[in-house]
């Protein structure tokens, strides 16, 4: 029987498609095994890099990723807090906060020292208008650094807002909603930190 005749058999179609599927899935399984560790490592590296961005250099010597505590906010949402320690002593914490921006949630990562002073803020995720709202990214401008050194009393609660609302933080020309969202997220982050400070540092690190 020639190949051409064989190809017309029903069983041949099944066998062919089955064989191809088998070969494809075996290959993928193999490659998955090879790359899985690499992918996990890359993702860890990502998180570590962003954590490092909101902390000054040499601020901590522990592996923040492993020194993590999960807390709940008043509204029930979970917040993962990474604690920074230097020589075993608690120095500060890093956590995510979000607020509704112009297009979608703006997610920021906030680093705070034990005194409640902001060490650094970075935007992790946003869908704000490119060229307008995206000036909150560090790559597009230094605005996000204006939070550094601020704390809940500095400026006062009334002035913790954008300039248009009588606050101290700049808004950008043409966009108020995005910076307002970031400011709100940061303010709530600080409030969260202050309210939960004991809980954050109560649990010992798992180093």
């Amino acid at each position, binding site marked *: 029987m020639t190949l051409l005749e064989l190809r017309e058999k029903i069983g041949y179609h099944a066998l062919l*498609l089955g064989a191809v*599927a088998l070969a*494809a899935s075996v290959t993928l399984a193999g490659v998955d095994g090879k790359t899985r560790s690499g992918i996990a490592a890359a993702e860890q590296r990502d998180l570590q890099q962003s954590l490092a961005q909101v902390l000054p250099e040499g601020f901590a010597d522990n592996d923040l990723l492993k020194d993590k505590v999960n807390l709940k906010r008043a509204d029930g949402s979970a917040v993962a807090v990474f604690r920074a320690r230097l020589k075993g002593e608690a120095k500060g914490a890093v956590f995510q906060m979000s607020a509704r921006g112009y297009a979608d949630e703006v997610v920021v990562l906030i680093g705070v020292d034990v005194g409640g002073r902001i060490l650094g803020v970075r935007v992790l995720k946003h869908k704000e208008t490119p060229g307008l709202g995206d000036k909150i990214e560090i790559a597009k401008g230094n605005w996000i650094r204006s939070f550094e050194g601020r704390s809940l009393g500095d400026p006062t609660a009334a002035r913790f807002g954008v300039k248009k609302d009588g606050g101290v933080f700049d808004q950008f020309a043409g966009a108020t909603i995005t910076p307002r969202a970031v400011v709100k997220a940061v303010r709530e982050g600080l409030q969260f930190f202050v309210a939960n400070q004991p809980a954050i540092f109560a649990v010992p690190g798992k180093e």
Partner: protein
Amino acid sequence: MIAAILSLTLLGTLLGFGLGFADRIFKVESNPLIDEVAALMPGSNCGQCGFPGCSGAAVALVEGRAAAAVCPPGGKALASALAAKLSLELDLSKVADRGPQIASVAEDICIGCCRCIKVCPTDAILGAAKQIHNVIREACTGCGNCVERCPTEAMTLQPIPLTVQHWVWPKPALA
């Protein structure tokens, strides 16, 4: 992982079987479209299209070997009907509408051989042996079969003159 591999393989095999069966069940034997197209054609089998008769032209049309404007006697009307039926491109301005034509007998040359009568697809020629033949205007399709057959060149195709009643306003030139 093994489960994923097995399920994908199984899925492939089953789909292969399914497709194989579907191939058997839905096998197309002949194309019913050809009959529908053939029904549109004049059916005079005049041969002007260059295909073996109207059914031959229908097969060619369905197989894409012929353009919608394949049939000169059908004119624009048939061309647009065919184009609509087969979703073919049609440029009406290119349809070889050389205008309707009709066969006519040059009475001083006709020898009354009766050969044209035999090839006329619509029995449009009257005549008997050794008698001058005549064309029935209403029945003649202008296919030209008789012209080829005539031994004395007494048969010619003449354009049907345009009359006031049949004149059509030209389409306005595009602005």
